């Protein structure tokens, strides 16, 4: 159950998408999100869909993973569909069932909306699927470097993120263990009234917090033993270097984004 969470999961590989410099990958992902929001016509949508699919193909991530990462968002999508289907009004209704009127505008809007959400999720999950957490935080740190000028603790933030991401699977495993232990003592975890359910969380959360604090303390000691003292004067084992391949792939992405954006000029917006 808890193991189904795919956020932040990483699938090691050697594809061009995996090898792309983390900094560029982050920038490309951010640009993709922006482009996705600015582009509001069908050809643009289709092109971005093709772009995402091509990236998945290139990275060798099985499309099954896509299904898995979309699954938890299904309720949100269904909710949006229902809400918009009945509340967007146009001129001539497409279907009329008593007081329910569905307009073609609403259907169009929903199609664009859903594909937008799906493309956003798929595009951004590709970043975490193909980038190890270390590379990801290294990239973020490098990109945020300029913020050092205004005394923003960039390195510390990056380190905190690395640690947080690193401990997600550990804590999930720990939660499962504790749940099993309390179930063995007859704890009811998934039935009863709302207040029963809240009460049932205490035997899980208390041990979980205690173990999280214990782990944090151990980790802090271990870091101190290795003379960790923050970012100042710290050198890196993995230097981020931009290769010719990186430049080539980034150029391809940029051109694609430019084409998607330029479609604004030729096609009418849907919403």
């Amino acid at each position: 159950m808890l193991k189904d969470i795919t956020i932040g999961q990483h699938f090691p590989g050697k594809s061009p998408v995996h090898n792309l410099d983390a900094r560029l990958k982050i920038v490309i992902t951010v640009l993709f999100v922006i482009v996705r929001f600015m582009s509001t016509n069908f050809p643009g949508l289709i092109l971005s869909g093709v772009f995402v699919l091509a990236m998945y193909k290139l990275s060798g991530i099985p499309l099954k993973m896509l299904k898995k990462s979309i699954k938890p968002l299904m309720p949100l999508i269904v909710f949006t569909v229902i809400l918009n289907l009945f509340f967007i009004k146009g001129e001539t209704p497409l279907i009329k069932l008593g007081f329910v009127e569905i307009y073609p505008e609403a259907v169009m809007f929903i199609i664009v909306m859903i594909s937008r959400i799906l493309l956003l999720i798929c595009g951004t999950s590709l970043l975490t699927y193909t980038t190890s957490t270390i590379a990801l935080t290294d990239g973020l740190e490098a990109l945020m470097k300029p913020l050092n000028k205004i005394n923003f603790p960039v390195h510390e933030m990056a380190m905190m993120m690395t640690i947080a991401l690193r401990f997600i699977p550990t804590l999930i495993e720990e939660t499962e263990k504790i749940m099993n232990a309390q179930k063995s003592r007859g704890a009811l975890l998934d039935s009863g009234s709302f207040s029963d359910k809240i009460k049932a969380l205490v035997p899980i959360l208390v041990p979980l917090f205690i173990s999280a604090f214990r782990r944090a303390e151990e980790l802090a000691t271990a870091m101190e033993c290795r003379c960790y003292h923050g970012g100042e004067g710290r050198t890196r084992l993995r230097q981020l270097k931009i290769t010719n391949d990186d430049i080539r792939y980034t150029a391809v992405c940029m051109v694609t984004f430019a084409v998607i954006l330029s479609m604004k000029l030729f096609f009418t917006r849907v919403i």
Partner: protein
Amino acid sequence: MSILKVENLSYTYNEGMPGATKALDNINLEIEPGTFVGVIGHTGCGKSTLISHFNGLTKPQSGRILLDGRDIWKDYDDIRQVRFSVGLVFQYPEYQLFEETCYKDIAFGPKNMGLNEEEIDRRVKMAAEFCGVTEKMLAGSPFDLSGGQKRRVAIAGIIAMMPKLLVLDEPCAGLDPEGRELILSQVKNYQQTTGSTVILVSHSMEDIANYADMVLVMENGQVYNYDTTENVFADAENLARMGLGIPDITKVFLKLKEMGVDVGTDVYTIPYAVKSLLKYKEAKRGEKNA
């Protein structure tokens, strides 16, 4: 009738996915009431998966688990009834403590059983006594105790449910020899006083040799052997091949035999070793005199 019967149990992790691993492969097993069963096997041989089936934490993918002849997934209305009869103590059970006082924590299981106040109180006191938890410890917070004390409180929390079958997964991991001895002798005491059945998973051959009547040897998700402790350790060569090892004293006797000293190799506890050595000496003297 056997207290616990496992029939054709198989379990595969990540079934139907890439990276599927078979953890249990057609396990058949029958445990008689009142026995102290030791379970040994290499890391990853399926011991923990097997015991998580015993109290219904894991549902069998194929096969059945029978408790007192009743299928735990069919003949019980509530799987919790099974969990109260089969007490499962996990590895590092001290990490499950959560209450303000040890008393309350030990009372968690009995309370879930829906017992009345008096009965809960009686059981907490009884469990505390079996596990060597003092009055003073009972009133205090479990988080002020040492690791070994915490573990005994956690085990008391299971014993307070008075399970017919007590399953312990490496209860001594990370404890000093004195702590191990204390916990295991208390568990043995519980077994003998209440006539319950105990299943002990351990990596220490000495602990198994000293306490178990029967030993279950697992290899690659299968039952390699289930026999009396004596017979299992007599098969030292195969145990060594599995990377399991045998009690130190058995090693000594095997070496003696190799060197041509005519002693038995079914020796696995120190008292028995002393006895057989004395017998050997006696026999030698007899030969000399003759």
